């Protein structure tokens, strides 16, 4: 009995302590200083500057940004109290929906999905602010290429500010030391790649006496084969056929040829036998652990990490990026991306306060300017970096990483993918590759259009496609299964989608 009341007493004390702590913790505000209005560094554009509270929501891929020097700089420069709402990216989609439904949207949100029928619906329901006029006074944002603006317009008007990315930034990565060990030249055509892959599997290229290597990395649903598809001229999303109409890249003759090539290579062991179960990180590990020698659909930015990790496993390893292979009809390249990642939208209710909107736009415009972009990447001179006598920058990478960046927008910089914390040789390789691939992108003629039937049946068609392709490559189905797949694809909605896309395509050409 005594034990019981003592226990109760302890519990109550714990609760009281916890509640006390809980309330202090729960009440801890963002701690931003309540700077007096009219601070000396008030925004020069607006002499009667009112200090606005601005909140921005975006997907967070690492640690949240800290209220350090850069943060304070922008709060001063724009006379704002900035609230950064970084949401863990794997739950970002749900958070977006919940935020819209709650009727309480932050002042700016990054809308990541594109094309998104839900987004278009929301625009038409009046959820977001039309930005055409406001953007007229945003010179840096205007620098974004016109094609991208055309892609994001809904009913001819602008409702979001796209965050530009390089159109093409992929890479074909290969083990140079393996090529040298086996006396092979750099492969140029898909046939070269084929033979190289087979030799990588059978010829013990790492000279360790064991049969533990293979040619090409691949992941579930035949992923990481970008340059291969383009070499076989499958088209990117949709292919402009000889008669001027569009055909889905899933069913083009080029796709059939590529699959045949892949299945033959699989039989000879040139492809990871387990590819059907591998997720992305597992695919990259195959390259980094020295098991695989070729990556046909890699990313330039990842190259730095592959080099670093691989060097820990095998200091003699040498990775290089080469020109994408040329296919039987002479084509090569990578699938062009949309050219942006996410667009920044403002809630329509903000229209009641045009001054606030203008402040937000000028802040975003700064982020897209050279100065702002440099600050986002390199920080503030003296704090995050110092200038070397030859003009290059000496970065304090630790502090940069610890501080993070409060910016959610960026300028158009094709060299964004060069990893600044990598050794100079690696950076140069990345730089060179970005130069090389810049014009090798193959565009998707229907990138901005999502057919209504695709919304309804798209998931199913994609599943059918993945199942068929994987089984063909693995040899569980013969290549003739592709023709059956095409028939089924068409019957289950593919024909309808093709018609809708072509109707749209024709309407755009006028």
């Amino acid at each position, binding site marked *: 009995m005594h034990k019981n009341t003592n226990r109760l007493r302890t519990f109550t004390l714990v609760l009281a302590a916890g509640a006390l702590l809980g309330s202090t913790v729960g009440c801890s505000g963002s701690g931003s200083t309540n700077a007096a209005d009219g601070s000396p560094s008030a925004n020069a554009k607006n002499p009667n500057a009112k200090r606005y509270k601005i909140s921005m929501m975006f997907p967070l891929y690492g640690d949240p940004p800290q209220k350090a020097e850069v943060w304070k700089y922008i709060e001063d420069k724009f006379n704002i109290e900035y609230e950064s709402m970084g949401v863990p990216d794997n739950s970002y989609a749900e958070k977006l*929906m*919940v935020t*819209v*439904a709650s*009727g309480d949207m932050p002042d700016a949100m990054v809308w990541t*999905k594109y094309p*998104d*029928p*839900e987004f278009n*619906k*929301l625009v038409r*329901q*009046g*959820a977001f602010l039309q930005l055409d006029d406001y953007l007229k006074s945003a010179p840096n944002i205007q620098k974004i290429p016109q094609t991208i603006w055309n892609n994001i317009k809904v009913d001819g008007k602008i409702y979001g500010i796209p965050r530009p990315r390089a159109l093409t930034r992929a890479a074909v990565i290969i083990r140079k030391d393996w090529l040298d060990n086996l006396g092979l030249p750099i492969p140029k055509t898909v046939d070269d790649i084929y033979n190289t892959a087979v030799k990588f599997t059978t010829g013990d290229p790492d000279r360790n006496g064991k049969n*533990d290597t*293979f040619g090409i990395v691949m992941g*579930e*649903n035949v992923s990481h084969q970008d340059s291969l598809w383009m070499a076989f001229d499958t088209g990117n999303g949709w292919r402009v056929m000889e008669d001027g109409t569009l055909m889905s890249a899933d069913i083009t003759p080029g796709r059939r040829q590529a699959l045949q090539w892949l299945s033959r290579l699989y039989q000879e062991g040139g492809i*990871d*036998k*387990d590819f*059907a*179960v*591998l*997720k992305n990180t*597992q695919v990259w590990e195959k390259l980094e652990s020295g*098991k695989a020698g070729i990556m046909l659909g890699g990313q330039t930015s990842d190259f730095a990490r592959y080099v670093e990790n691989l060097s820990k496993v095998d200091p003699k390893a040498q990775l290089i990026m080469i020109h994408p292979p040329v296919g039987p009809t002479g084509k090569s390249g990578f699938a062009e991306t949309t050219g942006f990642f996410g667009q920044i939208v403002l809630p329509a209710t903000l229209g009641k306060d045009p001054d606030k909107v203008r402040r937000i736009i000028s802040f975003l415009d700064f982020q897209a300017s050279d100065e702002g972009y440099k600050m986002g990447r390199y920080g503030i001179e003296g704090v995050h970096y110092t200038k070397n006598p030859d003009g290059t920058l000496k970065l304090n990478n630790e502090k940069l990483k610890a501080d993070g960046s409060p910016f959610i927008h960026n300028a158009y910089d094709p060299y964004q993918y060069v990893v600044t914390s990598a050794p100079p040789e690696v950076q140069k390789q990345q730089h060179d590759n970005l130069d090389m691939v810049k014009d090798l992108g193959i565009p998707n003629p229907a990138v901005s259009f*999502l057919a209504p039937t*695709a*919304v309804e049946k*798209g*998931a*199913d068609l*994609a*599943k059918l496609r*993945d*199942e068929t*392709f*994987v*089984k063909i490559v*693995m040899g*569980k189905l013969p290549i003739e299964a592709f023709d059956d797949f095409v028939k089924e694809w068409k019957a289950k909605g593919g024909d309808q989608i093709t018609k809708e896309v072509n109707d749209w395509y024709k309407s755009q050409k006028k």
Partner: protein
Amino acid sequence: MDWDLYLLLLPGLLFFLVFKYVPMWGVIIAFMDYSPFRGILGSEWVGFKHFVTLFTYDQFWRIFRNTIVISFYNLVFFFPAPIVLSLLLNEIRKQVFKRFVQTVIYVPHFVSWVVVAGMTYLMLGTQGGLVNELIKAGGGEAVPFLTTPEWFRGLIVSQSIWKETGWGTIIFLAALSGVDPQLYEAAIVDGAGRWRQMWHVTLPAIRSTIFILLILRLGHVLDVGFEQIFLMLNSTVNEVGDVFETYVYREGLVGGKFSYTTAVGLFKSAIGLIMVVLANWIAKKFGEEGVY
């Protein structure tokens, strides 16, 4: 005399009202074309349209079958595992050993499915997987465990058993520790051997817990654990592995199908409800407690 009991109930009732029943209006979404921006009042009523779409989906029966089969396997193999294990643990006399085992076996509960899936690959992959390397060393051919439909269901259930049995024993061990040792003594005096002791003393102590857990599990007959299956699913095993939750996930990826996914969820819950009501009724007929 019992007004103070009702007073005790109050906070709990309030909780359920505010946090469970007030938000229940969300199920209406299943009968509408819900738009998050317009809200419930601004969205269009479509009646049973989504349910029709679900039932006429040409792969509906495949998904339904897969879900039921995996659920059934779980019921037959996974559900009894913690019971058996806790009974075995109960027979151990050395407290130190018993405590050690108890603590160790529930550790996998804390390992995320992502890690479990990754380890499964490291063990069962054909290239370098531990099991297959052993098979190859023994002169055999690698078995494609992960890309053969026949292995899939067994794999899923085995993973569940591995991960959750230990955690599941905790409840039973709690129930077993409430058994009066004098009952065992009395049984021994009556000449009962180990098995009869277990049958007449141990099992009855956990019988009602078993029944309740069984009824509750039947309520989730169409829930088979999204993350686990999603991670293990690949294009070669879709025909046995595609379940309601992976289907809903896929559809949701394309864009904004709240109403549809809510409808699917409602369907699953409705079936679960029927099962629970049935099971509870049957339990009561057998003289058991039942959940309500």
